[in-house]
């Protein structure tokens, strides 16, 4: 009897060892990838921010350590003004998304959740901009706004060529195409709300607006908070689709349209592997991260402390 138990114990132990080997073998690839392309990239980004790279005519690379990649953004008048303008535009774009895109997304999700007329059709159409390449969508939108609208409404200027309307037209596009994933996630979350809770609200005589505000919204809040918290980074990464509208570096007709995300990408792309350009951009990235991290955690803390509770 004891021999049998002993054998079973050994078998279990063998199985556990084999499990550990299997686990380690399968984990090795993702962990290695993470070490190189997440930890390595970020450490390299920090180091790069303090480097001054010079490449001589015979391709010899000289690296000296410096603070000037950081200070340059504050002392150099041109850089400072460009980054300040880009920061202002990024804040404007973020506010537009937050105050129009998010509420509209939630209301559309509620409409879909309540299975109102054509709800499933609207769900498909709202998701469509997410599956169409931004370059295709922008191309059609751009010509439509600039050529078709002035032909329909006589006297209307070419809205994208007009300095007064350009920002609004691009902002409208950005909100218009922003509903796909958020509506999908919100409506899936709403679909999981217990019918008893809705029934109780209805018995209490709640109107639909009250039901949405006092019942559905708090119960969807965990998903909303994910979008809000992860959305802070978009303040620094959102390119406002400018690359699709106007193309790369120095092609945007008005520098006040540039966001921080566009600024970073367009300069890095224009560098074409010229490593001497990278250090100031890496420094700017670090500055932005240093602002984004406390902002994100501040928002997370605020939402957890003051946001509605699921209970």
């Amino acid at each position, binding site marked *: 009897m004891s021999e049998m138990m002993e054998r079973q114990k050994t078998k279990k132990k063998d199985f556990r060892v084999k499990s550990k080997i299997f*686990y380690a073998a399968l984990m090795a690839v993702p962990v290695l990838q*993470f070490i190189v392309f997440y930890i390595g990239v970020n450490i390299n980004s920090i180091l790069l921010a303090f480097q001054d790279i010079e490449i001589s005519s015979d391709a010899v690379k000289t690296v000296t350590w410096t603070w000037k990649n950081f200070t340059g953004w504050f002392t150099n008048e041109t850089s400072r003004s460009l980054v300040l303008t880009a920061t202002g535009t990024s804040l404007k774009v973020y506010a537009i998304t937050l105050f129009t895109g998010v509420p509209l997304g939630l209301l559309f999700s509620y409409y879909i959740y309540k299975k*109102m007329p054509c709800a499933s059709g609207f769900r498909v*159409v709202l998701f469509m901009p997410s599956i169409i390449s*931004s370059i*295709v969508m922008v191309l059609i939108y751009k010509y*439509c706004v600039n050529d078709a609208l002035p032909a329909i409404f006589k006297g209307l200027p070419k809205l994208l060529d007009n300095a007064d309307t350009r920002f609004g037209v691009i902002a409208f596009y950005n909100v218009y195409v922003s509903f796909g994933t958020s509506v999908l996630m919100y409506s899936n979350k709403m679909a999981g709300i217990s019918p008893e809770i809705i029934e109780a609200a209805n018995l209490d005589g709640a109107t639909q607006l009250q039901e949405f505000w006092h019942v559905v919204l708090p119960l969807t809040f965990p998903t909303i908070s994910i979008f809000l918290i992860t959305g802070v980074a978009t303040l620094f990464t959102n390119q406002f689709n400018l690359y699709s509208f106007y193309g790369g570096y120095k092609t945007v007709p008005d520098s006040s349209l540039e966001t921080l995300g566009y600024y970073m990408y367009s300069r890095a792309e224009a560098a074409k592997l010229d490593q001497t350009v990278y250090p100031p951009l*890496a420094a700017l990235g670090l500055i932005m991260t240093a602002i984004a991290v406390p902002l994100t955690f501040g928002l997370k803390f605020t939402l957890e402390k003051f946001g509605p509770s699921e209970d």
Partner: protein
Amino acid sequence: MEKIMKKKNSLNRARFSPLTAVLLGVLILYVLIMLGMFFWAIITSLKSPDRYYKDPIGVPTAISLNYGFVFKNFKIMVSGHEHKMLDMVFNSLLYAVGGAFMKTLITCVTAYLCARYSYKFSKVVYTVVIVSMIVPIVGSLPSELQMAHSLGIHNHIWGLWIMKMNFLGMYFLVFYEFFKALPKSYTEAAEIDGASDMRILLTIGLPLVKYTFLSVMLIYFIEYWNDYQVPLVFIPDHPTLAYGMFYLSGSGGGDLARTPYQMSMAIMVLIPILILFLCSHKRLLGNLNVGGIKG
């Protein structure tokens, strides 16, 4: 169960109120804008450039064969090499299918390991995913480019596959919650029968998650197929279809710069992905659900 579902449906299918009436109006306007844009793009793509510049919104009186012209001239010069449309389609397929498969597989397997094996390291990995989602690290593109260059993977499509092989992101949580919710009894029986861990993963874990796997892979496929910014900087000599479209819609348009050709080009690039979406939208818009972030 059926009763509960019926009750849920009847409660969800609410009465019409001023709120829903306004929402219906806004949504109809949304759809009309989209349909209007696509309808205009289609009729423009069938017009000759001369006809278009005379009347940008009228229906074409004679159909112009722009699509053939666009197919023939959809080519770009990159680093002294000419790339035709079919080359770009091939590059797009390599990048999108390979990248999406690698990314989904790694995410799914890592989530499986974390959910089914309660080692301390699993908790570390889970925490890393959550932290990476919350902590915004921005502006690392220059470093990524330098790293890719120094590792010798820059300008190779397989290099991009390697770069995409990470488990970070929201879909890790989708897979994690799926495997965590799977009753232990599913795998215990196989364990008693002496099945190895690999066998359990291949014959029980992956088959059970296949529909979620396909949905996530499809989402990544569409994302990479449409992406031109990553190929532009990481595989500049292997233009994808979206990259080519970006090039030709800008200053490199040449013969294709005129609006009807641009619209034909847009429709040609749009149609395959639209068909794919319409065939798979039920799966795509299905049950991908994520709860709150804890930690």
